[in-house]
């Protein structure tokens, strides 16, 4: 039922979802979604509130496991490996599929400890020097190093909202993930901080598969190369961002993009 744009070139899928449905108790939040998410691209999920885009995003690194009533059906593969089999270690999965949340949520620890958290629990660094190097590299990649290098021992919560969000991105890339999921990462930020995050997403694109959920169609147009339009638990249309925005095939997509609803 998903309309896939004919222009969408076939690439190797980093994440392959087939007939994925997500239930909260008896309520079906996602209805048989199938989608391929490529590496080295930014894929945007757009759609009106409550359409299930965040729910689907959280299914991709099994964060829905933390909600007792949530249940997932269908197949989600990461590099061809089903992530919902009992053999899949959630800890390993989440190390490979990082996540950035809607509201910046740095731990109430120092900036250094926030970044070192992931490498520590996954044993990525041997000794202090290696850990220092990971912290510096992550902060540099997140474009935060110059702002915080002199106060790594300050609390992460003392930073501004935009800096906190970049800290969270740095925290996510510190464990060297393959996929980064971003759940409306700019909705709590002002326009300047938003611009910085968008710039950062663009820079990170080459190394990861990035999936971003956003309410802002301008943001989707600015940062993404692939766009999926979600509506009522379905992916209505999926294609190159330029095609979706300039030449939507579905009436509902057109209505949403032109601001008819949502």
């Amino acid at each position, binding site marked *: 039922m998903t309309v896939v744009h004919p222009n969408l070139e076939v690439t190797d899928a980093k994440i392959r979802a087939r007939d994925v449905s997500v239930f909260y108790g008896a309520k079906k939040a996602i209805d048989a979604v199938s989608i391929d998410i490529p590496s080295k691209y930014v894929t945007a999920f757009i759609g009106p509130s409550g359409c299930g885009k965040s729910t689907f995003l959280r299914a991709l690194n099994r964060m829905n496991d933390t909600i007792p009533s949530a249940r997932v059906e269908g197949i989600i593969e990461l590099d061809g490996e089903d992530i919902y089999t009992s053999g899949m270690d959630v800890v390993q999965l989440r190390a490979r599929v990082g996540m950035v949340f809607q509201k910046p949520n740095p731990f109430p620890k120092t900036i250094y400890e926030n970044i070192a*958290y992931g490498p520590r629990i996954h044993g990525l660094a041997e000794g202090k020097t290696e850990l220092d190097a990971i912290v510096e590299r992550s902060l540099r990649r997140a474009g935060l190093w110059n702002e915080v290098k002199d106060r790594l021992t300050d609390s992460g919560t003392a930073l501004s909202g935009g800096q906190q969000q970049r800290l969270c991105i740095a925290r996510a890339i510190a*464990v060297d993930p393959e996929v980064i999921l971003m759940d409306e990462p700019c909705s709590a930020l002002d326009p300047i901080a938003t611009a910085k995050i968008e710039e950062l997403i663009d820079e990170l694109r080459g190394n990861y598969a990035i999936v971003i959920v956003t309410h802002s169609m301008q943001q989707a147009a600015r940062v993404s190369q692939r766009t999926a339009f979600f509506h009522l638990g379905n992916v209505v249309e999926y294609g190159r961002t330029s095609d979706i925005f300039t030449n939507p095939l579905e009436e509902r997509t057109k209505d949403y993009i032109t601001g008819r609803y949502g």
Partner: protein
Amino acid sequence: MSFSLLLLLTIGLALAGWLAGRARAWSFRKTGEGVRLAALPNYHGWYVALWIVGPLLAFLALWTTLAPNLVQQSVLADPAAAGLPAFDFQRNAILAQARAVATGLATTTTHPDAAALVEPYRDAISRYRLIGILATLAIAIGAGAFAFLRLKPQFAARTKVERIVLAVLLTASLVAILTTLGILVSLVFETIRFFGMISPLDFLFGTTWSPDPMTAPTSADPTRYGAIPLFWGTIFIGAIIAMVVAIPLGLMSAIYLTQYARPSWRKWLKPALEILAGVPTVVYGYFAALTVAPAIRDAALAIGISGASSESALAAGLVMGVMIIPFVSSMADDSIAAVPQAMRDGSLAMGATKSETIRRVLIPAALPGIVAGVMLAVSRAIGETMIVVMAASTAANLSANPLESMTTVTVQIVAMLTGEGSFDHPATLSAFALGFVLFMVTLALNFIALRVVKRFREAYE
């Protein structure tokens, strides 16, 4: 008798005032076309009623202390009282007899003078009762009329009533604060008397505690008033043994309840745990004395430790620790639950396991709340009396062996105050000095706990 009568009268008058005020407000609404009352009619009623009750309660408080004196004075002015002895003690005895007969508590008098005074007494009592009732009525009508006449459609009765409510609430909170101050003042006063007899240095740093209540107050031996064994016993039982039990168990149960327990389990387990806090300490006391202490002694003997006392510090400490578990766990529970879900999600999304998340994120973030709970628990434990009285004996031992009998500050306060000693003897007064020290320590602990909690509140803003 006359007091309850007056009180009843007050309530009746207030009710009348309430009804009158309300009726008047309703009448404003009926008569005036399009009149908007500034307050609901009930508030007008309350305004009048409170104006009646307030002055009357003040009058009653004054009158109940004043009236007996006035009665007695008018009896003494009676010619029949002219022959009474001038000596206070005798005179009061005779007057008391007369009063007892006059009020119907006794039927006959044993003293001849008293019989003559019964009649004047009866007259005076009924006279003053009448005066009391009349004054009550006058005050009620005066105050009520004053309030009643102030009622107008635009009268802001609601804000006035709010202000009165505020005053009542303020008074209520002042009672607690003033009581604390009163306790402190009386403690300080008696403690100073004690330190006048025994030097504070001997008391605070001496290592032998065996007060001698039977010696003459002036010849008390200061070297027998060293409170160190008591402080040690208190800390050892309340702050060390009890906390070794309570902190891990309380913390772990809080973690289980907030992080692992299914909601249906939690619904049952949490109240069940809190029942522990509601068990009377006496019950814990005999549980400690009759069940735990003998078991510990037997266990010690079985593994070859001789000389284990049947009233051991260990027994008291263990049971106290169990008693304290709900304090630690409910504070820890609250502060762990108060850590935002976003922190937990953030950690889980990094690939941390549940227990790593708890250990590395939740507990550090909740630490101030947990510490505050532990502080409160410690101050509760060192102030605890019953368990130690029953399970840990009154022998003041300065020892690190938990199997020995020990005593605490609170137990000695009980022992000193319930003994035979007189109130000018340092042995008795030492109870106040001990109480003062205990008060200061628990106050300091509570203060620290409150400061920590305050910091905790700012953590996520």
